[in-house]
């Protein structure tokens, strides 16, 4: 410490190391009384932290609603790579200009020497299809709005607390088989009075998220996705989920789905189908399903028109059965320098089985950084 202090004091005049005393140099404080902290020690032990974020600003107008601007997300990713084997990461969500603050996910990946097995612990995005886990940030999605099935059947963005095993094996040049299997607390329908003997059931799946701690039932939900990846962005998978969702009865929610994606050349093709069955005590089960198909063509590195068809059958009143046709455009101003900056615009026409048609127009900017 004496040596360094001396050097610091005499910075203008270089000192020859021959003039320094070795014993003094060995007297340095390595525990870190001055600069030390647990964080500093972690820094010293090979933890490489990272900080990223994504921002989504948009303006939209919809039949029957007032047009508005909206800072939809400004979400922060904080994480670290520890010796290449442990990767903790948290996504802190700031939605609608800070109106909603929460943790979208907070997970720790523990790798093994083989790609075939990684342990994921914490609150993670549920691998139900590919969109919820891999595509939902708006700097990646083809259109400003999510497909209807990914709001009303799969409640994107859907994260659960528990544990997951995942991995993949290469099965040929350019081909890989992957899997994920998880055990989580699972979706749970809120019940304002959990002791009144009235079973709250058959509700909206979006409202069942956020069961961070089981308080009423020990049952855990199980789910999986198996998939294959190939050349030209080919990916196909099948997913399933099964868990108790009611507090005052052991009614189960079953969910299943298939997903497909392919991007040969300038073409982009995506399709997903999901269905769900919600057991009910007093009436017949609620069954809901939906699908979407999307095609995009990259005209050049900057521009991609996109067309999407949505079909949704929520298993409720007929007015909620509907189709939606969306035409959109993606524009990357700097596709090489800033590939995660994208402008999108879309116009959608929704036609319900009963009731009036409605329209919606959205302009969106998204950037990941």
């Amino acid at each position, binding site marked *: 410490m004496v040596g360094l202090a001396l050097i610091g004091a005499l910075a203008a005049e*270089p000192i*020859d190391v021959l003039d320094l005393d*070795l014993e003094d140099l060995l007297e340095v404080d390595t525990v870190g009384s001055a600069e030390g902290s647990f964080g500093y020690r972690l820094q*010293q032990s*090979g933890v490489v932290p990272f900080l990223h974020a994504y921002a989504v600003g948009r303006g939209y107008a919809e039949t029957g609603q007032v047009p508005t601007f909206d800072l939809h997300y400004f979400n922060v990713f904080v994480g670290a790579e520890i010796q290449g084997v442990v990767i903790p990461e948290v996504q802190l969500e700031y939605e609608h200009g800070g109106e909603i603050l929460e943790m979208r996910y907070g997970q720790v990946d523990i790798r093994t020497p083989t790609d075939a097995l990684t342990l994921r612990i914490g609150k993670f995005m549920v691998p139900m299809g590919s969109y919820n886990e891999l595509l939902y940030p708006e700097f990646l999605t083809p259109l400003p709005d999510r497909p209807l099935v990914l709001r009303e059947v799969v409640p994107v963005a859907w994260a659960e607390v528990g544990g997951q095993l995942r991995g993949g094996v290469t099965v040929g040049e350019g081909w890989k088989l992957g899997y994920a299997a998880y055990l989580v607390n699972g979706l749970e329908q809120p019940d304002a009075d959990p002791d009144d003997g009235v079973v709250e059931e058959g509700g909206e799946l979006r409202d069942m998220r956020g069961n961070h701690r089981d308080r009423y039932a020990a049952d855990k939900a199980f789910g999986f996705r198996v998939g294959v990846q190939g050349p030209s962005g080919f990916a196909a998978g099948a997913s399933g989920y099964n868990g108790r969702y009611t507090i005052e009865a052991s009614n189960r929610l079953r969910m299943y789905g298939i997903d497909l994606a392919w991007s040969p050349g300038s073409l982009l093709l995506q399709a997903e189908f999901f269905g769900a069955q919600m057991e009910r005590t007093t009436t017949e089960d609620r069954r809901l399903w939906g699908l979407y198909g999307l095609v995009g063509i990259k005209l050049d590195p900057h521009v991609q028109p996109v067309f999407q068809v949505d079909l949704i059958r929520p298993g409720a009143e007929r007015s909620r059965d509907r189709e939606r046709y969306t035409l959109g455009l993606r524009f990357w101003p700097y596709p090489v320098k800033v590939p995660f900056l994208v402008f999108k615009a879309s116009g959608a026409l929704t036609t319900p089985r009963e009731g009036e048609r409605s329209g919606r127009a959205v302009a969106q900017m998204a950037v990941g950084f």
Partner: protein
Amino acid sequence: MGWLFLALWMAHAGEIRPDQQALLLLKVVSYDRERSRAPGEPSFRIGVVYDEGHPASVRAAERMMEAITHLGAKVRLDGAEVEAVLLPAAELEEGLERDQPDVLYVAASSEGPLGRILATARAYRLTTFTGSDELYERGVGVGLLARGGRARLAIDLARVREEGADFSSSLLKVADVRRRR
């Protein structure tokens, strides 16, 4: 029991700060009787070797580079300026031919290519240093290590002799010397 565990952990945790390591490295080199530079060469050059496939190693190497660069403005070694060069392990031979370092510092988390690094160091007669306990235990010649809240020098005598160093007894008496492998 908890305090005992904490004390033991503190005694063994972490590394010495990069600037402290750099200064100790230079001081250790000053005890090498085989230390020599090419005639007319005005600088002493530390080659910082790292595993480019390992982010933690890259980070450790960058921090050491920063420390040496900063220190280089303030100290001399036997009148010579001190500088550093980054040397990715995968291209170590090419880097040594190009940059002609005087010693090698092996960045933490470089266990992967360590065998190759040490073999190359022996072939080029370059003394190896590290601030990592793990790397010292795996064969790096000189450890600039932390123990009990203080810095400790660890020297593998057989290894550093293979690497061409001949340290004076005044250094060896204050270092933890490993005489046999």
